[in-house]
């Protein structure tokens, strides 16, 4: 089976504009394949290159070497099959909440009426009914994140690229959102790449957890299959013993890596 999204031996070296000799290899020789309906969580120390990888997968950044294939075809420009929820704020500040949520539908030419209707439904799903008329700067950080979530999910993309989507949410809201996401995902076999710093979240949501090494020249150092039964409730599954077992295993691997990376950065 061809994977839905495949990064093959991808490296990314950033140049600095002012100093042509100054280069930084964020990601080196990374291979990553996501199958149909697979939910892959990516974890790794801060600054290791997770966002960079996601940008490559989205077609926003051309890797220095290596190839990206989507459904078997090499990715030329933007990855049109993917929805991307950015780590940084990416809402259009000149559109209010509902306008941001329906933006993608509008771009696809969906009739205004229908778009607004679906937009309202999505606002409700992310708990923002009544905030449709606000502009981004009038929302709290967590609200903006939820708007971005709705903005992406309303388009029902086949591949979801999510960069720390829930880190700005309180635990309860986060669980609600996680369940929402799982429901959506299981309904039509989406492929998900989910970046998080919360190992519990990673394990409770995904089929596979990929651990990246510390930068520079980050690459996957672990690939753990999560064999917890589906469907899952993200709050309950954390209490199972299998969960704790997996958690401890990955945790140990990561801890080492982070300390190594931390030392590495300090030495530089």
């Amino acid at each position, binding site marked *: 089976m061809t994977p839905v999204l495949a990064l093959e031996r991808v490296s990314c070296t950033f140049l600095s504009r002012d100093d042509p000799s100054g280069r930084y290899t964020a990601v080196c020789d990374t291979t990553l394949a996501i199958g149909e309906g697979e939910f892959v969580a990516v974890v790794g120390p801060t600054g290791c290159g997770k966002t960079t990888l996601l940008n490559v997968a989205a077609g926003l950044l051309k890797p220095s070497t290596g190839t990206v294939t989507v459904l078997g075809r090499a990715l030329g420009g933007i990855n049109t099959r993917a929805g*991307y929820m950015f780590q940084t704020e990416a*809402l*259009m*500040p*000149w559109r209010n909440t509902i306008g941001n949520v329906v*933006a*993608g539908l509008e*771009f696809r030419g969906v009739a205004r009426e229908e778009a607004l209707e679906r937009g309202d439904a999505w606002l409700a799903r992310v708990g923002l009914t009544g905030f449709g008329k606000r502009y981004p*700067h009038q929302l709290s950080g967590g609200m903006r994140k939820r708007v971005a979530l709705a903005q992406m999910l309303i388009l029902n993309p086949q591949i979801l690229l999510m960069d720390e989507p829930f880190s700005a949410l309180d635990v309860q809201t986060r669980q609600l959102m996680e369940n929402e996401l799982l429901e959506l995902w299981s309904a039509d076999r989406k492929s998900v790449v989910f970046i998080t710093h919360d190992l519990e979240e990673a394990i409770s949501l995904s089929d596979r957890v990929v651990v990246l090494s510390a930068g520079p020249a980050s690459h996957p150092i672990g690939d753990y299959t999560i064999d917890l039964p589906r469907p899952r409730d993200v709050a309950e599954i954390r209490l199972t013993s299998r969960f704790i077992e997996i958690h401890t295993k990955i945790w140990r691997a990561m801890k080492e890596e982070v300390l190594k990376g931390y030392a590495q950065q300090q030495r530089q």
Partner: protein
Amino acid sequence: MPSSKDSRAGGGRLRLRAFQALLFVLLVVIWYVLTSPTLLPPIYFTEANQAAFFFGEPVKVFARLWQWFVSGEIYEHLWVTLVETLLAFLIGTVSGVVIGLWLALSPTASAVLDPYIKAVNAMPRVILAPIFFVWFGLGIASKVALGVTLVFFIVFFNVYQGVREVSPVVLANARMLGASPRQLLRHVYVPSAMSWVFASLHNSVGLAFVGAVVGEYLGSAKGVGYLIHQAEGFFDMNTVVAGILLLSAFALLLDWAVGLAERRLMVWQPRTIETERT
């Protein structure tokens, strides 16, 4: 997140207007005193009525304005100038926005054309006027063309820069949401560059008037610039000043309209945060 410093209630607004009016009166009084041949010993000029020769006298200037409107003689000229100004403003703005967008978004074209645009901008319009007369005739069109050459560049340079200042993340997001290049233009580049456009429009308003008047001044049969030119021939500074004041008033009117549009289109901007105060 600055505090609500410049939120202005109704009372403040009134005080502001009062201030402005006061300043206006003050300026007129200073003008009056300085140009009145008898009130003061000559300060800057050696002769008593030389100041009046250069700056006109307020009483006569206002009399002139009054008489223009009472006799109705001004309307035809004013109309011509206003039409020229508005056309120059509109054409200059639209072409500045369109070409600014185009060049900002196609790096090759912009790299090739860049020196030409800058060279053309450095050409003195006054000297090019005869060529405009050849191309556009002696009527309204040539004045509009002159105004456009002033307005266009102001808008162009700002749009060009404004587009390049678009937040890369917002742009990437819109692309991921499936926006076509055309939709990116309409839904990302244009709104993002909007405050740049408005900054340039406030400047353009003035220069559109300048273009129209200078065009008329250089060759015309009608318009406020024509009146000014006629008056200058006989050192009738009062009429010159009256014409300039009249146009300034209309420039303020047009600028107010631009400001209105700006406030409507820029509500989304995170300026100052307003909390209710009691």
